[in-house]
């Protein structure tokens, strides 16, 4: 199915919850309301005609100027060989969204990574803790305004400027 058709049918079935279809770009995407994401994904996975068996990717984009963090879901279907991109906008100071773990189990690890690197809280996640960074790390690195902490475990994270090093 074409992404335009997918958007059209989704708009009919979930009237207020999808919006903002961008069809003329390379990867057509549609914006989904954050409260309805689990419902829509479950529908997309199970219904014949769509059959998005696979969550290819779950990642986030940080837009500090627009004060939002955008979660991006790439869904793919092997049987129908089509894909769709869903985006959800979350407020930057309190990003919370429901977890997709019941729909696709792989969301467990993807969401842990997004939590670790962006600070998005996934409600209902069975095991939301940092995955790449150590447990006691402060901050979420992939945010655009991330500043590294001064010290970690007693070791300084700042590198002395080159001139100082040469003079030493």
């Amino acid at each position, binding site marked *: 199915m074409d992404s335009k058709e997918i958007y059209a049918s989704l708009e009919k079935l979930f009237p207020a919850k999808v919006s903002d279809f961008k069809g003329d770009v*390379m990867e057509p995407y549609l914006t989904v309301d954050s409260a309805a994401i689990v419902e829509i994904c479950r529908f997309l996975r199970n219904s014949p005609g769509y059959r998005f068996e696979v969550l290819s990717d779950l*990642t986030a984009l940080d837009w500090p100027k627009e004060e939002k963090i955008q979660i991006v879901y790439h869904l793919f279907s092997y049987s129908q060989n089509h894909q769709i991109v869903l985006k959800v906008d979350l407020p930057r100071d309190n990003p919370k969204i429901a977890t997709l773990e019941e729909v696709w189990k792989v969301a467990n690890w993807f969401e842990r*990574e997004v939590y670790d690197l962006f600070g998005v809280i996934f409600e209902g996640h069975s095991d939301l803790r940092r995955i790449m960074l150590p447990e006691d790390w402060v901050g979420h690195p992939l945010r655009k305004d991330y500043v590294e902490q001064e010290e970690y475990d007693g070791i300084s994270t700042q590198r002395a400027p080159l001139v100082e090093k040469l003079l030493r």
Partner: protein
Amino acid sequence: MNETAQEQGGFYTEDMTISVGPQHPSTHGVLRFVVKTDGEVISEAIPDVGYLHRSIEKIGEKVTYHGYVPYTDRADYLAAMFANQAFCMAAERLAGTEVTRRGEFCRVIACELNRIASHLISVGTFGQDIGAMTPFVHALRERETINNLMEEICGARLTYNYIRIGGVGYDILPETCTKITDFVDHFEPIVSEFNRLLSGNKIFIERLAGVAVVSKEDALSYNLVGPNLRGSGIKWDIRRDIPYSVYPELDFDVPIGTAHVGALGDSFDRYWVRIREMQESVNILRQCLKMMPKGPAISKVPRKFRPPVGECYARVEAPRGDMGFYVVSDGSEYPYRVRIRTGSYTAMSIIDKLSKGIMLADLIALIGSLDVDAPEIDR
């Protein structure tokens, strides 16, 4: 550390918590599993990753598109060409750049050679984890020839920085093409020898048949890709189903797991798919070398590469599965976001589920058969 104690018929036993890794001769790279075992039988194996996290995604926001290509090599150093290619495809699609035809053929040749090298390491170390030391060294011997060929093509043995935006960095000379043909002729019977030595071995089969079976539903739900997915019987290969580069013109088969020993989707099936993929790569190489056109190897791409605003998700079929690069551009010469989605990351997520109730030796076989690779997981 709390150990759960169970009373079994009046006999007091405790679960043992062992840490497999991060320094361990057979985890593939720096990985750690916190394993709770009851003697030899595992009750839980929780992966703990992040020892090789190098923040490649954050670096993508600080360097230019051209300058990022060497960083993509390190995203999976055993299959560096594919990461290069995926990123360059994403950048080219964003900017609408055309790749020259000869460049596409050079890309496919380099990638298929890299696929053979990566699979050689994979099956070799897998054999070694099971205990057979000789096939590992034989596989490495063949990989040495490939490394020498790569050195002739692009100057490096492991992290190539060969596939650039718009084509490839250096042209493949006719002498190198002859050497590749010789290698391919030499390599094809080596795979049969390898099979006689290892794949047909009864002990090897007994260790792997029926161990850690991944059903089709699980493979889809946990988003396994590449040989892991094909080992469970799902015939999906990006080179065939979302073709890119010159793959539509090439004729090759996509091997899937056939359960000729044990169950469908067990460790042996995944291993067997990799062996068969090596043979298919040999086919592809032969066709490419015959069909190579003449022409420039790279098209003209501006030095300050500034694609328009947009985003692009490019996938390639890497040895460890579908590697996707999601590149978001905001019109400047630095990418806004580069996201690398690798097959090993999702393969790690299924280990906890598969490891309940198997033995410690099977855990090692499981990790080897999924072909996880620390740089891909941690990026």
